[in-house]
Structure formats: structure tokens, C-alpha cells
């Protein structure tokens, strides 16, 4: 089942308004550990410690400061922060439509499912919008305000419902150029064999094939330890890197193996 409703609003563009409800689309369940004090196994708590007095500081004695230069701050009050919050609104405003598959996955942040809000009197048009977008193969780039934050996102017609992807702002993505990668010459032979190898190893994407094996093994280890059994500690496996001079050889051997 989709997650509960987290927000209500309406999609707007041109003369169209479609009221919707947002649902979470992903649920992660993980094994949770607590941090304990090693010598007495007391559960530790996080505390904010004053660097000067070296003691815990209660919430009412904490302020937010923006560092202008080392050790010098502008204090910003909660009321001032409140003023910078975007005006609250229920409108998911579409600014433009783009052909699908234009958005680099690096921009995709979170995904929500949209349910038609049929309780709303204008709760129509959802199906027409879904069909129109699907047939035209487009997604809508939109902005909205939710929980005092402004979002940019992509409205998509996929699966059985409309979806809203929140996108990262462009200046939040680290440019590849900043990685300072070197250019190393490669031979055409290396590239041809490498490409051939990839084609041989290609399969359809079937995510249900993969499960979180680690989580299961971790659960087992916890149970073993709870029963007081001894655990064999294994060192992580480290692969020996392929030497540049042996790259062609390794590719040829791989191709032979894949054949």
C-alpha cells in the first residue's frame, strides 16, 4: 500500500487545476543500532557541547549564527528565519513541459505518488491529464511550497498514477569538471574489446532479482550473538587492481570467460 497522505494541493497550468494528495512512494526498513558506552553499556545521548565552557548547552541557550569570518557571527533569530519562509500555498505550478528522459538522474531527489483528491469539488481532470501527458510523452517542470520549503520538481505520468519528483537545484550538483580527471590515451583495440565485453554482460533490468542479502546476514549474526555463539571475524576482501599494462590482457581474458 502507498504511504499515508502527507500533503494536499492542486496542479495548475493554463486553465487547468487538478487537486491531488501526495503519498510517499518508498519505504526503507533498516536494522537500527544504538550507540552505547563501551564500559557500562548505557545508551548514549547526543548533546550540544559548548566549545568554550566544555559543558552541555540546553536548547533554550542555543542560537543560530552565520559565520562571516573566523569566530565572528551574525545571529539570526527564529522570527527572522520565519520571515524568509516562502509564502504558503497549495499550488503546484507547472512552468513548462519537457519531453521525458531529458532529466539527468542526478537531479532526482524524492518521489511522491499523487492521488486524485476526489473530495475536492474540482476533483476532475486527473485522468485526462494523465492520459494527455502519457500520450504526448512529456513531464511537467513545476514549483511548489510544502512545509515552509520551496521545491522544484517534475510531474510525471508513470505506472498507474501521476508522480511528483522533487529535483535538486542546479547549483547543488557538483560539476564533473571539479573532479579534475586526467585524460589517459586508450587504444582502439582496448575500446573495441571493452565494448564487446559490456554487450556480452548486458541483461534486462530486473530489480526484483536483487535483495538485500547483507541485511539478512546481519540479522543472522545478531541472532547468533544473542544466543552467545562465537562469530568468526572475516577481513574484507580487497581486489588487486588491474595494472595499466595488463588492461588489454584482462579484457581479452574477460571476453573469453563471458563467451
Amino acid at each position, binding site marked *: 500500500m502507498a504511504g499515508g497522505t502527507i500533503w494536499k494541493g492542486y496542479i495548475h*497550468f493554463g*486553465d487547468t487545476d487538478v487537486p491531488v494528495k501526495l*503519498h510517499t*512512494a518508498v519505504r526503507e526498513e533498516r536494522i*537500527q543500532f544504538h550507540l*552505547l*558506552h563501551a564500559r*557500562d*553499556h548505557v*545508551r*548514549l*545521548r547526543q548533546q550540544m*557541547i559548548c566549545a*568554550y565552557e566544555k559543558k552541555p548547552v540546553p536548547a533554550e541557550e*542555543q*542560537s543560530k549564527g552565520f559565520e562571516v*569570518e573566523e*569566530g565572528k*557571527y551574525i*545571529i539570526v533569530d527564529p522570527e*527572522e528565519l520565519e520571515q*524568509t*519562509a*516562502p509564502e504558503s500555498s497549495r499550488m503546484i505550478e507547472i512552468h513548462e513541459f*519537457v*519531453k521525458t528522459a*531529458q532529466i539527468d538522474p542526478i537531479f532526482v531527489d524524492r*518521489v511522491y*505518488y499523487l*492521488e486524485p483528491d476526489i473530495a475536492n469539488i474540482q476533483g476532475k481532470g486527473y485522468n*485526462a491529464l*494523465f*492520459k494527455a501527458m502519457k500520450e504526448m510523452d512529456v513531464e511537467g517542470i513545476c514549483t511548489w511550497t510544502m512545509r515552509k520549503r520551496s521545491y522544484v520538481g517534475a510531474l*510525471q505520468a508513470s*505506472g498507474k*498514477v501521476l*508522480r511528483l519528483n522533487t529535483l535538486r*537545484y*542546479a*547549483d*547543488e550538483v557538483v560539476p*564533473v569538471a571539479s573532479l579534475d580527471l586526467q585524460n589517459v590515451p586508450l587504444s582502439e583495440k582496448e575500446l573495441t574489446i*571493452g565494448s564487446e565485453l*559490456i554487450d556480452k554482460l*548486458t541483461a*534486462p533490468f530486473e*530489480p526484483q532479482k536483487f*535483495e538485500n*542479502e*547483507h541485511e539478512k546476514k546481519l540479522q543472522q549474526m545478531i541472532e547468533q*550473538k544473542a544466543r552467545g555463539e562465537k562469530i568468526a571475524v*572475516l577481513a*574484507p*576482501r580487497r581486489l*588487486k*587492481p*588491474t595494472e*595499466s599494462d595488463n588492461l588489454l590482457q*584482462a*579484457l581479452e581474458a574477460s571476453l573469453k570467460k563471458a563467451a
Partner: protein
Amino acid sequence: MAVQGIWSGTISFSLVAIPVRLVTAVKPGHVSFHLLHNKDYSRLSRRMFCPEEEIMVTPDEIIRGYEIVPDKYVLMTDEELESVSPERSRTIEILEFIDMKEVDPLYFDHPYYLVPSKGGEKAYQLLVEVMRRTNKAGLAKFVLAEREYLVAVTSKEGALELITLHYSDEILPDEDISPKKETIEAEEENRMKKSIEQMIEDFDPGKYADGRRKKLMDLLATKVKEKTLVEAPPIGEEEGEGPADLVAALEESMRKVKEGR
């Protein structure tokens, strides 16, 4: 700029192994504030505190515990945790290659880049180039910070990008909220299509900016002009000579924030 890694190990496909580091590909653009003690304006730091002994606890005195019944824990050392999947904690093993177009964006979790470590530059570039030529992405599994991830490794502008994916059982079904079948009024659909047609453009991510961030920066600029600055007490170290022009200093800080530092 030397890029710091969050993880280092090897990425492998078939018999080729490439030493790499994992680095972040996104930096939240939030204006970063520091928490200060409002009595002395000294910086606060997050520390683990033992409520029983009322003391701060250093990292070497901390152990992880899994709570089996209230207040009873199974203890796990770092070595034990790393030994859960020893073959995956230092290796990103590409299991197969896929067409990224087949991956529903619903699966995308978090993006990173991989950068080559010393000696891996050539094999790294080979993988970048052959994935670009074949238009394929590597599907791999590896363990980062106690958690196993399914990841897609793609070729992007000469670099390897790594996107962690959700597992299929983490994706919630959408059937229960899908709309009831209703007859779609052709008139309405056509009106929408016309409207959409007029609004089609190319995707330009740079067009949108966080309005709140701008407002915050304006607020800070106003406050710095009013010279409402506070100063933290020196802690042991000598004080450096700061720039005299505070507005220039703020602009410099803003520039850093904008560049994602």
C-alpha cells in the same frame, strides 16, 4: 582541488579491477548556520554524552548495540559489522550491464561520483568510454556504512557516476491510490493537450533557484551592514587577522555557499 573520498576500494567488472574513491555528487544548498551558545557565542559541537555518568564519551569508548528487549543489547564491533559481507565492503562488483532507460526513476536514491585512485586512471577511463559507446550502465552491489546498496554506475561527461537504488521491496505499490476508471471527456483532454503543446521547452535545471536561500542571503547582508556581529571567545589558539571589510567577507562567504564549497 583535491577531492576527498567518503569511501575507497575497488570497482570491478569481470576480470578488471579499478581502484577508486567515492565522492559526493550533490551538496545541499542550504545556507549553513552554526549553533552557538547564546551566553558566550562559542561554537557548539555535537557530542555523545553518557547520561548515567554525566560525561562526554570519545569515539573509542562507543560501541554499537542492537536492542533485543528493552535495555538489553547485542553488542557489535566494527570488525564484526564489516565481516557480515566481507566480499562487498571494499568492492563494487558490477554484476551485469543494463540500459538506464529501463530503470524507473522511482528507484533512484542518492548520487555520487567515483574518481580513480593512483594507478587506476587508465582502466577507469576505459570503463567510462566503453559505457558511453555502448550506452550502458553497470549494475552492482556494495556495502557502505553497514548497509548494502544496489547501485547503477553510469558514464557521465568523462566520469563515473554512481547512483544508489532502492530495492524493489522498498517501492510501495500505487494500485490502491490509482484513480477509478472514468470516461475522459475528449474535449477536456484536447484542451489540456493544446495547453501542454504551447508550454513544451527543453529542460534547463539552471532556471530555478531556491527562493528561500535568496531571502536568507538578503537578510544576512542587511544584518552585516548594520554590524550586528558577535564574536566567539578565543579557545587556546591565536586569533588571525581577519579582513576589515565585513561586507566583502560576507560576499566571499556567500560565493562559497553558492559554489557549494
